[in-house]
């Protein structure tokens, strides 16, 4: 049996290649398998990836095409260009941005000290924290907003303030995992002892030693929280706030092409930012950001 027998193509060989070292038992299994550049080719792998690729890319492509047909005369990017001047777009984006800033700020102020403290002083509590921080996943947003509107004081109902407070809760599972991973990657005790023995007070230790070491974790938590706030629809619409996602929904009655363009744009921007952060996290040798 030699490579020359292969008739399937110059690069597809049937024969040795594959895993070095696995010569005994594996030899039997190799028969009939295809190799490409010394690697086993598995047709099912390509089939699965092709089907998945088609299922996920076709709607994206179709939506993109649809958004290009904005003014009905051929293809143009006008739906994207005109987005900024659409009725209600600017206030909606501004409201979403404010919510993102406030919720992210509160989230970090709440979660960063908590994460550091739990790792430093109460490691036993970590399990409890893992449980408590996953509760917002268990409670459907529609149930949470129902309960919130039942108990909130009248002044807070149907205001963005209520949303900001609740978005902090919704972002807890994502931010806790990011920060938890970030602190765990540090040798907190050594860092703290070193800083303290060199005369650093607690403020100096946290601000100039721990936080700089947690840059990527804090960035991940920030990005995840912002992405969550910018994409959240359920609570915003039931709290009667016109944020960016609710605007997309409402505006689809006026012009579907614009709404689809806005939806595409928001997915794309989220994706780009997450790719950037995960590349950053990967380069720093940490694990990638945990999303679930």
């Amino acid at each position, binding site marked *: 049996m030699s490579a020359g027998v292969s008739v399937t193509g110059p690069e597809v060989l049937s024969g040795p290649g594959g895993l070095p070292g*696995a010569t005994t*038992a594996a030899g039997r*299994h190799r028969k009939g398998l295809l190799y490409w550049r010394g690697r086993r080719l598995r047709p*099912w*792998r390509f089939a*699965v*990836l092709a089907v*998945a690729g088609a299922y*996920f890319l*076709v*709607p994206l*492509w*179709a*939506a993109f*095409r*649809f958004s290009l047909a904005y003014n009905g005369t051929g293809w143009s990017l006008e739906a994207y260009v005109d987005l900024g001047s659409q009725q209600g777009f600017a206030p909606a984006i501004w409201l979403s941005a404010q919510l993102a800033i406030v919720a992210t700020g509160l989230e970090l102020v*709440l979660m960063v000290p*908590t994460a550091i*403290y739990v790792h430093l002083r*109460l490691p036993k*509590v970590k399990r409890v924290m893992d449980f408590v921080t996953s509760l917002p996943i*268990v*409670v*459907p*947003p*529609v*149930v*949470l*907003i*129902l*309960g919130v*509107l*039942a108990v909130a004081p009248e002044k807070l109902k149907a205001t963005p303030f209520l949303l900001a407070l*609740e978005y*902090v809760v919704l972002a*807890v599972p*994502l931010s806790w995992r990011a920060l938890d991973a970030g602190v765990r990657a540090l040798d907190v005790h050594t860092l703290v002892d070193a800083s303290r023995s060199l005369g650093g007070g607690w403020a100096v230790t946290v601000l100039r030693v721990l936080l700089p070491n947690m840059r990527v974790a804090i960035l991940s938590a920030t990005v995840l929280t912002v*992405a969550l706030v*910018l*994409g959240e*629809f*359920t609570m915003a619409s*039931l709290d009667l706030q016109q944020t960016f*996602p609710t605007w*997309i*929904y409402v505006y*689809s009655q006026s012009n*579907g092409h614009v709404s689809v363009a806005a*939806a*595409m744009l*928001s*997915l794309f921007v*989220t*994706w780009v930012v*997450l*790719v950037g952060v995960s*590349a950053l996290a990967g380069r720093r040798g940490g694990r990638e*950001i945990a*999303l*679930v």
Partner: protein
Amino acid sequence: MARGHPSRGASGALAAKAWAPLAPFGAWMALFLGVPLVAVCIGAFENGSGAFTLANLRAATSGSYLRGFENSLELSLIEAVVPAIFGMLVAYAVHTSRGTFLRRMVVTTSGVFSQFGGLQLAFLFIAAIGGQTALVSNWLRDIGIHLYGNGITIYTFAGVALVYLYFQVPLMVLVILPAFEGLRASWREAAENLGARSWEYWRYVGVPVLMPSLLGSTLLLFGFSLSAYATAEALTSGTIALTSIQIGSFLNGNVIAGQENVGKALALGLVVIIAATMSVYVLLQRRATRWLR
């Protein structure tokens, strides 16, 4: 009180001091998650004037609301099993690929689809297949499938099920990839050196190790699908009879007098189902991590 012998009260004060820095987080969760949840649970048993009643639960488990639960459970069953199988295959295909680029792209994209875009995804599908002249509808017509002639639209149960796959499959990929990464190459090599064929490896090593993760992930998908709201709301404008949509409609003002608290009974039912599902998920996950250390 002698020094060096702190009384019970003093050690209690010490413990309280140790816990104090967790107070802001605990208070926030209690106030903005705990209190609303308790309000839902209590409200489910109250009539309009605040007296105890079981009428809400009875209403929530009959007629159109019972149908809502049935539809939600049926949808979630489909959205747990189908994406679990397909997502597992995709995850394995990604896991066996060389290099980290494909993996990183798949993980990030999965994150965007499953976590941050329920509403936006609905619009992708409306554009793709939402009308007779949409791109995919045209393609299907060209190969002889007349969706709209057969009364199948994206705005019905089948359509919602199709679109849910778009975030359920990525979610499965996200949660099951770490499990595949926990399968050590040495196990496979050991099996092969002992003469195991590929199917034997999977039958006696791979699948048993993965099983808790697989079952757990399926449950997670089930719960995720039950609590989803945005996609179905955007697709059907709130007309589909799913429990989450029905709960939302109580806030949208479509309430019959005397039924104000039926929404809370529905919410209670939903939370109970999801909590039960998630408890089993946590147990299975704990079992699964034995192998993934």
